[in-house]
């Protein structure tokens, strides 16, 4: 039973890493973009632009977080 749980947990982690990757911001941006497209489409408005805008914002936020982490790590290393 414990082995099954460990394997399930490990597989869950693998699947998470496989789909979501290094930063969940991108997956959240894609989901929000698709929801926006569906809402705009159902209201009869042109909706194709919503997904590119959503992923550009998500990618920018994700890159900003990553570069901030890098410079923070660099500062810590310098203090040591």
């Amino acid at each position, binding site marked *: 039973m414990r082995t099954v749980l460990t394997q399930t947990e490990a597989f869950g982690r693998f699947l998470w890493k496989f789909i979501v990757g*290094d930063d969940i911001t991108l997956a959240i941006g894609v989901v929000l973009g698709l929801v926006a497209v569906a809402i705009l489409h159902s209201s009869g408005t042109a909706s194709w632009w919503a997904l590119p805008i959503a992923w550009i914002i998500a990618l920018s936020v994700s890159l900003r977080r990553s570069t901030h982490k890098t410079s923070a790590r660099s500062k810590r290393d310098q203090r040591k």
Partner: protein
Amino acid sequence: MTGWLLFAAAFLACTVEAVEATTVVVAVGVTRGWKSPLRGMATALGVLAVIIVALGPAISSIPLGPLRLIVGALLLVFGLGWVRKAVLRASGFKDLHDEDAIYLKQVAAAKAAGTEVGAGRLGGDPYGFTLAFKSVLLEGLEVAFIVVTFGANAHDIPVAALAAALAIAVVVLVAVKVRGPLSRVPENTIKYAVGILLTSFGTFWGAEGAGAHWPGSDASLLAIIPLTALVTFALVAFLRSSRQGLASTGEVAA
């Protein structure tokens, strides 16, 4: 629709779909090795054959929208992950060769999970297998739809099927020809280009699956791909300049 007109229409439409699927397979094959994407493609063609034999003309009743939505969303998430790493590398915020270590970590995690759907069974690289499988299955279904709908409208399914087969053969031949030159392009450049392609196709299919109609239909990809590239180039330029600023104040290594 006359026979020649039907042939030309089906050939062109199927060429577009075949190019889309082949682009993903070649891109993944060049960057991650050919074994898994080719297995993914072969498995997708097998599944496709079973679906076509089982459903016959009823294949046109399969809802393509949800399939496009799932495939598009996953391609977009994968593609953005590739683009993110490529932008960080190109702007100097990430080392150039850490991909292999990350991949080995993923394979180790898959092995720890038991290799039910992990590395061994999928031919070494589940990532490459899945990307190729999804794209070939989706585009293959679209080709089957084109054959059935065009063929049924003109009461000549064999001509539409012949046009589709010829279109696929031509696209595969071209892909085999460009495979060699592509493998000589530097690895990081290829990974950057693949990220842009996956993001572009993911954007196109995902939005279509969620209900959007792209201006110009499939031709809009000719605008989506360069625009995606431009956005990433702008991000690289911005990060490079901010890195130079941080380096001058000593906040990151120069």
